[in-house]
């Protein structure tokens, strides 16, 4: 998986020990680090907690993205911290009179063209928002639009067919209606993000959450286009703020403010429609269908031992979902489907950032 989603999965040096869950057991067994920063999206996270509902013998602290707070089981909460990345994008410049904070000189689009990264529906919604942010198509024509969007082949499926990539690019053209300069990774790395550079990452957060591309863009001073039409985010108080990259810090919060969305038991009832839709979309996404999570994220925490001692055979527990083989379309539904009435959700639900 890591190669398939490179370079978002690029390993970066950090004292926070960023890892993917599929690799956590091996890393933990070898490294015995006291804490790990989990880079995964919602789908592998759900698989991990489903197969490891309790920490068992595994004692390290896991740092999980704050957007997934509600999916951390109670048994884990004393061993889990929530993180978010903060950029000081306003700082580090000389004071210059007359510099317009909301000026848009260029828009840079990043992400992977892959069904498990961003579905066509989500792509379309994001592009509409980008056009709106730019002030409409006429204004967008005056803005330089660049993109680093490598194509990653995830194979043909009944869900996405074999023409996902062409449809993706066609959607880009049709929605934006401007010329796009496509970049190589080296171009993105060396590019100078002048004042007025705005960035958007196409990422639904199902497969991965901590993306190297996003961190790179933040470090270079890129400001991310606000996606949700919501009131300004309330100020978050962090227990700790740790610099991890130039001009990027990791804010860590230890206090859980949202209750657990209990997807582990058959009596699961979602607290609200938004959370249930988030779960529904994630478990019905390509990210869940494409990869063999049962094999990659087995149950291991209960009998975890460090390297040098025998590691107990992993016990695979299926989550409380009806899932399919990799190549078949699945409509993964929880055992209790009371909340899933015949009409499917009619509106796009913004997966919170």
């Amino acid at each position, binding site marked *: 998986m890591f190669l398939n989603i490179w370079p978002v999965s*690029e*390993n*970066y*040096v*950090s*004292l926070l020990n960023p890892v993917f869950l599929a690799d956590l057991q091996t890393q933990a067994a070898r490294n015995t680090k006291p804490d790990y920063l989990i880079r995964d999206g919602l789908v592998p996270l759900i698989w991990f907690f489903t197969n490891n509902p309790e920490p068992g013998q595994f004692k390290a602290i896991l740092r999980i993205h704050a957007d997934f707070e509600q999916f951390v089981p109670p048994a884990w909460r004393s061993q889990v911290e929530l993180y978010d990345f903060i950029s000081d994008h306003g700082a*580090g*410049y*000389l*004071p*210059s009179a007359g510099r317009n904070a909301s000026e848009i000189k260029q828009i840079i689009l990043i992400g992977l063209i892959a069904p498990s990264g961003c579905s066509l529906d989500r792509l379309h919604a994001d592009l509409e928002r980008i056009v709106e942010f730019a002030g409409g198509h006429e204004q967008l024509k005056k803005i330089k639009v660049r993109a680093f969007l490598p194509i990653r082949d995830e194979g043909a499926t009944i869900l996405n067919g074999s023409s996902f990539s062409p449809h993706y690019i066609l959607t880009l053209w049709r929605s934006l209606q401007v010329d796009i300069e496509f970049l190589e990774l*080296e*171009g993105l*790395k*060396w*590019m*100078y993000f*002048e*004042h007025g550079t705005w960035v958007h990452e196409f990422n639904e957060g199902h497969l991965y959450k901590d993306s*190297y591309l996003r961190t*790179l863009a933040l*470090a*270079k*001073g890129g400001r991310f286009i606000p996606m949700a039409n919501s009131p300004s985010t309330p100020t978050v108080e962090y227990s700790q703020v740790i*610099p*991890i*990259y*130039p*001009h990027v810090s990791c804010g860590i919060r230890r206090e859980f403010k949202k209750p657990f969305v209990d997807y582990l038991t058959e009596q699961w009832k979602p607290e609200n429609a938004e959370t249930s839709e988030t779960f529904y979309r994630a478990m019905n996404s390509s990210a869940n269908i494409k990869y063999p999570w049962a094999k990659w994220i087995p149950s291991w925490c209960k009998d975890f031992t460090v390297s040098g001692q025998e590691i107990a055979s992993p016990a695979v527990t299926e989550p409380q979902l009806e899932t399919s083989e990799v190549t078949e379309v699945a409509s993964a539904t929880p055992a209790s489907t009371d909340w899933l009435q015949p009409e499917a959700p009619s509106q796009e639900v913004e997966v919170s950032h």
Partner: protein
Amino acid sequence: MRIALISMNDESYWRSCCFITEGLRDAYKLQPRDRVVEWRISTAKSHLNPAQMAKEIHNFKPHVISFLDTHPAFGPLLFELSKLKPRWGHYNFRFHAYGDFTCKANLWIKWAAWLKGLNVTFACASPAQARLLQNLLLETQNATEVCPFPVAGEDFSFDPLRRESLRKTFGLKPDDFLIVYTGRLTLQKNVLAALRAFAALSPEILARSRFVIAGEFDDLGAPMRGITIPPGGFFALWQDELNSLAPAVRERIQLLRGMPRADLKDLYSAADVYLSLSLQHDEDFGMAPAEAAMAGLPLVLTKWGGYMTFLEFMPTDHGIHVHLSENNGPEFDIADVTRNLTLLAEQKLTPEDRRRAGAVATAKLSVKSIARNIKRLKRSGPQFRDFKPQVYELAQLFDFKTGTLIFTNFHKGSTYEIIYRTYIEPKVDSAESRIKGAHSFWNRKLEGIRQSLHQSARRLFAS
């Protein structure tokens, strides 16, 4: 004279290369009485037709075909041009060589086959680079010339008002000592060593000093020594270095982002010294020191490659001697850096001193000045024979995974030492070099007095 310019339409990934090409282009277009036409190659164009482009150039009948940079996309065009011959014999090819010449050895070897027998000159940004390249040419003399990269776009001249304003923003008093480094924050630029040199200043000087570092981090490492750094690695090293410093030192170090050139100009006016300890393998010139020199900033630079050029602008020599270590390649003594910073901390320059020093640099590095330099470049060069075996060895040392050369030893007689010995200045007694520097300063002063007397005499006779 007709000059055909060849350049890339695609913007280079390196920001400084974009400024350099823009400056060279402007300098060529200032040529009086010369007709200059530019052809740009774009890798994005799927209908690239080198034969057609070569024919267009041939029909233009240029006296000189000048390549503004080095790019693999030039190859097919070069091949087509090498087959064409004007009435007068051969075209004259001029290549503006960059510091990464050695890293592109395999490209040059391929092109060598087409260049054989043609008139070729290499315009190099500094005497050190010119010597390096000349030493790589087989049985060919006088094939390299010096043509510094022009500083185009912004006017970097010293601005006392902006100095006062920005220093006030930084919370600096008039007597405070502001050191700046601008450029990439990377291993080979020795930014960490610069921090250590700053930390080693005496407490009295530190108490009134500030070190502002402006640039973007990269993780290039030191690939020529086989040192690669994973993403975020250099930032981790930076954090470690900062955390190892005493709090009193740490609070005097300010990290800024890479900034637009208009802001750099203000920063240079506000600063008291520009410090760069680069030992980058392709430091054939140095755009940041060039800009700082035009602001009249005293420079503390490693005596390495193109940096040595700028030290000639200064009345006193504050260059840091570099020697070649057999194990680690080029090295310098951090104490030497601290000593030079200390000397400059005790020096008080007036705005007039800054303007004068800036004028000296501007006279050598502005677009107009380089345009005059280009006019003096040879119209016809010697016939190209081939490159020396070292260039073929360089091609063998190229590592496709890292995209650079990897050297494993630096002892006398090694490929690295043979090639890069021209990047190091032989050590002289520092007192002697200061006297030499002062000598040249007084020579310039006398020259200035002579010129003003001459002008007065002309006015007197005219009246």
